[in-house]
């Protein structure tokens, strides 16, 4: 029945996005195979079209495999910052968008955002700076729909360095936020 309906609509040249609501068929009721038909139709834009991509992006792959696949931005789970800064780069934002999609799709997943600073300056200020960095990432994820219940922010300031040198390279590695999926 549904299959027929979709076929009809396609024949009529109507974009899937524009019709489902009007016909009383909710988007999330559409089985995957039909959706993939819809995906081949045309360049449907907007949120629903992206939702369709999401289904195929992570479908059928265990989280542990996804996180370890160097081909996906999900393998990027450490984000680095400039000195005394909490600004994210464009590529960081792109990677975080993928993390947000995964978290949105798998609502039982939770992440800890661990903020860190380099050793320069005062320890207590650096603890706050680590938190500020982690909160920037928390905000990016939240704006893309990730539930606050899925995110925990913890700052270690300069107390847990990644690199132990006292030089530019160590400082660069230590100014970071680590995105840790709980249980993975």
């Amino acid at each position, binding site marked *: 029945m549904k299959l027929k309906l979709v076929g009809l609509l396609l024949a009529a040249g109507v974009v899937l996005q524009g019709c489902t609501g009007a016909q009383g068929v909710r988007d999330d009721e559409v089985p995957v195979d039909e959706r993939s038909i819809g995906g081949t139709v045309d360049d449907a834009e907007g949120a629903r079209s992206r939702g369709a991509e999401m289904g195929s992006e992570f479908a059928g792959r265990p989280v542990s495999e996804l996180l370890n696949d160097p081909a996906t931005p999900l393998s990027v789970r450490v984000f680095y910052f400039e000195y*005394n800064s909490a600004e994210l780069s464009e590529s960081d934002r792109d990677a975080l968008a993928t993390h947000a999609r995964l978290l949105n799709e798998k609502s039982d997943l939770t992440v800890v955002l661990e903020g860190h600073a380099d*050793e*320069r*300056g*005062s*320890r*207590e*200020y650096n*603890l*706050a*700076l680590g*938190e*500020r960095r982690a*909160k920037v990432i928390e905000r990016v994820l939240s704006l893309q729909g990730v539930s606050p219940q899925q995110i925990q*922010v*913890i*700052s*270690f*300031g300069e*107390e*847990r360095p990644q690199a*132990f040198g*006292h030089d530019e390279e160590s400082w660069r590695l230590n100014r970071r936020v680590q995105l840790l999926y709980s249980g993975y």
Partner: protein
Amino acid sequence: MAMLLLLLSWQAQARLVIEINEGTEGALPIAVVPFGWLAAGATQGDVSNVIAADLARSGRFVPLAKIKMPGEPHTGLEIDFAAWRAAGVEHMVVGRVQPRQGEGLVVEFQLFDVVRGVQLSGYSIPTASSRLRRVGHQISDIVYEKLTGQRGAFNTHVAYVTVERSGKESLYRLALADADGHDEQVILTSKQPLMSPAWSPDGERLAYVSFEKGRSLIYLQEVGSGERELLAEFSGLNSAPSFSPDGRRLALTLSRDGNPEIYLLDLASRALTRMTFSNGIDTEALFAPDGKSLFFTSDRGGKPQIYRLTLQDGRPLGKPQRITFEGVYNARAAISPDGKRLALVHGDGNGFHIAVQELQSASLRVLSETLYDESPSFAPNGSMIIYATERNRRGVLEAVSVDGSAHQRLGLSHGDVREPAWSPYILK
């Protein structure tokens, strides 16, 4: 038993070691003559060594080397003042340790003005043999005050954090030692970071930050008993504790309302009052000694700088005023006991040094030359500032006199040591 031995030998290794880097011009020549030992058994360390080291460390005195001493008197009657004047000393300390009626020891000492040949001070101090170093510090305090007019701060403690890494694990310790680095006592051990020790004004408790539950929470620990309680576990950061002068409130940094702000916690009622309201980071609060204002670090203007907030009935009066303007980074202030100056971490673009800023004139002077200096803390008499820095890639503690003329170094034999907090005067 083997375990115990291991522990003991390790503790012996971990002792803080004193090195004196520089003396002061115009320091007073003094002789601290080896004390006589009239008690049973061999001498258990010479009290005079403790006193001479204390006085030298202050930068205000130059003790005469033992080899240059024209004699070894133990009482005033035995002193040949002419010979000591010829040796170039202006003052001298003599003393002896005697058995005490019943048990324990009595340390007797006398301080003389060598030029005039008169006694300036003298006490008889009952003690136990295990506490001879403490008595030495007490005598140093008396001599220092008599000759400089300023109260001595030798019989005090320094609390600090040490870290030792082995492989992927780190071991953090919260410890205290005498102000000369001896007699270290570890009061807390954790595999998670420990931070920000802060003394209560009576010197009996330490507030600090521990990550033992996975994030920064504030604890309060009785130094004597080791008993402790969890004081602040709000969502977000719990950090930078600092006591009010009356010991009844704690200033602290919490990010429970979104970003780090300063709060006051009433220790009896546990009532919390928010003191700052800004979009930036506000942290590292401390009270002025009169309790009438708070100083804290804020980057509300872009970079971290020190601000002052006036208090009225424990609440903010008006807006915080920025008080540091020199340098790109000023943070983690400590205030002198007389409330006249701040010691702070000063970033000049090349590194982070300890600097002192006079509150009246706002003039700032840099006291340290090393690049990664942090966590300054005043001696309770205001004469010295202890701070953490790095030497040969290791964390060490150094102290500098407030005028910058005298430097001393304390370092662990291994591991890093950081975040020194000089105790108040010990009243007991």
